[in-house]
């Protein structure tokens, strides 16, 4: 089976499905679609049909199955393209200013988790001869190719800002595919502040980018509640499996998760002393929502362990003024760093450190 044949067959399947308002039974499709015609009906043909449906889904073409009432057998089920998949080509036409903005919006995903979607979207938008923007189709995500600063005559908006949001590519793709197909995912997760990863089973809902970090939002079957997971901390391959019962993704899952994170951020703060003029001073002052009260910088965050990691990274440029718990978290990290880097020939420094 070459890809050429598959492409032709899938296109033929799509044309058949687009042409019918009432739908076709599987048997009718097997008789009518070029590529199915003449093949023996059996498991091989069934699997081919399933693969083709999946392939169409990648393009946003969802095939709906209508089961006649009272009939549980698969024979009379009718297949058709889900309502709302097809629309007026004019909906995808944009004026010059809109095209510029879309070009820029697509190029944000130049590298990172949404590259494939952005390329697919660009392909659809290029049906309009006026639209030339978006990502080149033949770029491999993660490789920088369009670095040509020497010939920037009059940079278009698109070249001004370039995004490199790099989630762990493989986990991200696996999570999105599972979400599309309504499947549950199983992965090992290293929760911030914990030392050992734990297996989680999650019904994936949405992905959220918050303060530069990609997160998965979903229903955690172990916790029996909505949970947000940092993609960077998914430490195993993502496996997927059929759910015991089909699950619905709340329509506002992504937006609701983002709102929740904003709420946590607004409510969580650490007071820190910084060495004036230090790297910590400049960067923490520039951090979103940072304020100063009586010589203490009030720094907002979404997770006490993550901010503890960040503060540990500033070393002696920063010390936690409050709360005590946060101070302890940073201290624990620095002690671990100290102990993990203590050698025999550093013994003198170690003694010095503990004496201080």
């Amino acid at each position, binding site marked *: 089976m070459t890809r050429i044949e598959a*492409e032709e067959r899938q*296109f*033929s399947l799509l*044309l058949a499905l*687009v042409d019918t308002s009432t739908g076709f039974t599987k048997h009718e499709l097997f*008789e009518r679609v070029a590529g199915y015609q003449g093949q023996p009906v059996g498991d091989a043909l069934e699997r081919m049909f399933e693969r083709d449906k999946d392939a169409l889904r990648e*393009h946003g*073409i969802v095939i709906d199955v209508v089961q006649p009432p009272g009939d549980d057998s698969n024979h009379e089920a009718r297949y058709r393209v889900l309502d709302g998949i097809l*629309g007026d*080509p004019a909906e*995808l036409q*944009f004026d010059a200013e809109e095209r510029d903005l*879309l070009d820029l919006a*697509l190029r*944000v995903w130049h590298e990172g988790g949404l590259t*494939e979607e952005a390329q697919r*979207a660009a392909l*659809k938008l*290029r049906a*309009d001869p006026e639209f030339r923007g978006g990502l080149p189709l033949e*770029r*491999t995500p993660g490789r920088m190719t369009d670095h040509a*600063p020497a010939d920037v005559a*009059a940079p278009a908006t698109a070249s*001004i*800002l*370039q*995004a*490199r949001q790099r989630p762990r*590519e493989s986990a991200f*793709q696996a999570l*999105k595919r599972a979400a*599309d197909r309504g499947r549950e995912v199983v992965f090992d997760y*290293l929760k911030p502040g914990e030392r*050992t990863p734990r297996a989680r089973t999650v019904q994936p809902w949405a992905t959220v*980018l918050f303060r530069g970090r990609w997160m998965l939002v979903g229903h955690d079957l172990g916790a029996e509640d909505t949970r947000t997971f940092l993609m*960077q901390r998914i430490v195993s391959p993502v496996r997927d499996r059929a759910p015991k019962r089909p699950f619905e993704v709340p329509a*506002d899952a992504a*937006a609701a998760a983002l709102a929740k994170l*904003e709420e946590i951020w607004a409510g969580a703060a650490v007071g820190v002393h910084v060495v004036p003029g230090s*790297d910590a001073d*400049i960067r923490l002052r*520039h951090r979103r929502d940072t304020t100063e009260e009586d010589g203490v910088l009030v720094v907002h965050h979404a997770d006490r362990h993550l901010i503890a*990691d960040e503060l*540990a*990274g*500033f*070393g*002696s440029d920063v*010390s*936690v*003024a*409050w709360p005590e718990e946060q*101070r302890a978290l940073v201290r624990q*990290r*620095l002690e671990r760093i100290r102990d*993990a*880097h*203590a050698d025999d020939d550093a013994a003198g*420094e170690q003694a010095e450190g503990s004496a201080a």
Partner: protein
Amino acid sequence: MSASRVERGIGLLLSLIQYVTASGSVTVQEAAAHFGVPEQRIREAVERVFMSGVPDGAGDFIRFDIDFDAFEQHDVISVTMRPAFEDETVRLSAREASALIAGLTLVADYTGADPGRVAALREKLRRAASQGAETVAVDGLAVPRTAQIVRDAIRQRQVLAIDYRKPGDGSQRRRVAPVRLELKEGQVYVEGADLDRQGMRTYRLDRIEAIEPTDEAWPEALPQRERTVAGTAQVVATRAAAAMLSDYATSDPVSVDGERVRLDIEVWSEASVLRAVASCGGDAVIVAPASLRRAMHRFAVEALRTAEADAAQSPQG
């Protein structure tokens, strides 16, 4: 996954039908340039489309048709018959629309576009998408005044004077010809030519203390981008910490004991590497070189000393 999957699927066939129809007639060369694929890929797609059709119920097909002579002899594509997709097309999938809307949210404020226009475009995209939950959400970026100045300077080709502080260094004034803003892990970077050092450099926006446009002439040629790397360090880290350091990695992580991996990272500046490793909160350990390992130890000892001194002074203790 790879980008080539995108152009191999039926997406190109669908888009090509609309594109050729809207254009009236195009050459294979024009279509290849428009879609950014090899000409042969366009020819294949054309042949595939025009061998396909809609089943007529009697086991035969009503087929797409083109001016075949023009195609064969002059490489010109012109559609004469469309049994499907005459006045409809496949809309954006929820994921595609999400990528567009999220990208727009991230960058809209950097473009200086009218917020009303942006909001209207976002709505238009939502309408152009097939139903389905919006599966991606992003928080918009705050656009500090500094970023606006850089943006305008890039457009107007103005050289900037920047007061910049490198970690472990004092503040320095630099003359920079900015070429782009780069967004990475929630941080914005300015890429530009440092006119004093004659090299391409990247600056963290949040380390810029002061910035102003100058009257200096834009350089005739921009220098090549190069990165001076002092050496590499070997690090053993948890998988999550290794992911945080992956931007600096020069080797793929190798498993050492199931939970931890070994990787090499670039040492572009000792202070920056110590900070990056310390930001892993103890989940990353420098194994070699010994000097850097000792420096990491010293870094932690000094930070702990500062914290203790501060705690002793603090009334809230």
